[in-house]
């Protein structure tokens, strides 16, 4: 492939946007927040981010935003991921590797059930947004 330009990127986006508009849009109401602190990165948060982008794209979910934050205060179970789905409790998952990412996408985002064995407590109170 030749070197891509911003113009190419703009065109690709228009193309993708066309495909997206055909889908039944529910609004951007699902939020995935990945902990990218020193602890997270050391435990594989970058692979976790890659996996989320891949799996959400594969599942064709148009209503998900992926964000990253620093350390959530749960360094012992990194990589950690916070998942907000309307109508479901806000959940912090820990020890999220690529296989668990797939589970979260399939079970939590699509199936609307929590993924057992990876649910951890709320993060440290000082970083909870009010």
């Amino acid at each position: 492939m030749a070197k891509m330009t911003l113009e190419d990127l703009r065109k690709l986006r228009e193309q993708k946007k066309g495909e997206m508009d055909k889908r039944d849009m529910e609004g951007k109401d699902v939020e995935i927040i990945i902990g990218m602190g020193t602890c997270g990165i050391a435990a594989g948060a970058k692979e976790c981010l890659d996996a989320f982008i891949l799996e959400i794209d594969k599942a064709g979910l148009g209503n998900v935003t992926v964000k990253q934050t620093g350390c959530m205060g749960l360094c012992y179970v990194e990589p950690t991921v916070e998942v907000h789905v309307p109508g479901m409790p806000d959940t912090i998952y820990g020890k999220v590797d690529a296989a668990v990412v797939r589970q979260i996408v399939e079970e939590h985002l699509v199936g609307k059930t929590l993924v057992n064995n990876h649910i951890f407590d709320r993060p440290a109170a000082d970083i909870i947004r009010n």
Partner: protein
Amino acid sequence: MHAAVGDFVLDCLQNSVEAGADRIDLEIFQEEDRLRVTLRDNGCGMDQEELKKALDPFYTDGKKHRHRKVGLGLPFLAQAVDLAEGTFRLSSEKGRGTTLEFGFSLNHLDAPPLGRLDKTFLSGFLFSGDHELVVHRHLRGKSGAAGYTVSRRELTDALGGLEETDSLVLARDFLRNQEEELVKITF
């Protein structure tokens, strides 16, 4: 401690974002095996006292995590650079911003590997806020020198945001393409 240069850089980049900078410049210059990195921001900056403390792993201003007693980003980097017998310089002016410069030979036995810079840049662009981050990448290899520049504002503008998965997929591919083409031209 982190494994790759990109991870160290990401920590420092987050410092700049959290220092309230609205303009951040990251330069990663590579001449053969010689690596030179500069990170410049116009955030809140530090006075001389804070500047000294910033390299102490047991110092933090305590604002981000109330009970935490450590701040490891810069100390880890300084340690890694020291091990690789490189150069490290941190300068800052209160209210004006901070500049971090470091360099070493990637062939040094104790040097951290560069890592996947395209992934570092993607993560760097994803820290939320409406600040500008401009990444300058330069590489001189066996068959010549080349470089590329990516601006967060331009990238966000071209993709209509950086949060939707579709945009992230395109941003990821775009950055990988820039890096791959660069290596192809210069090696």
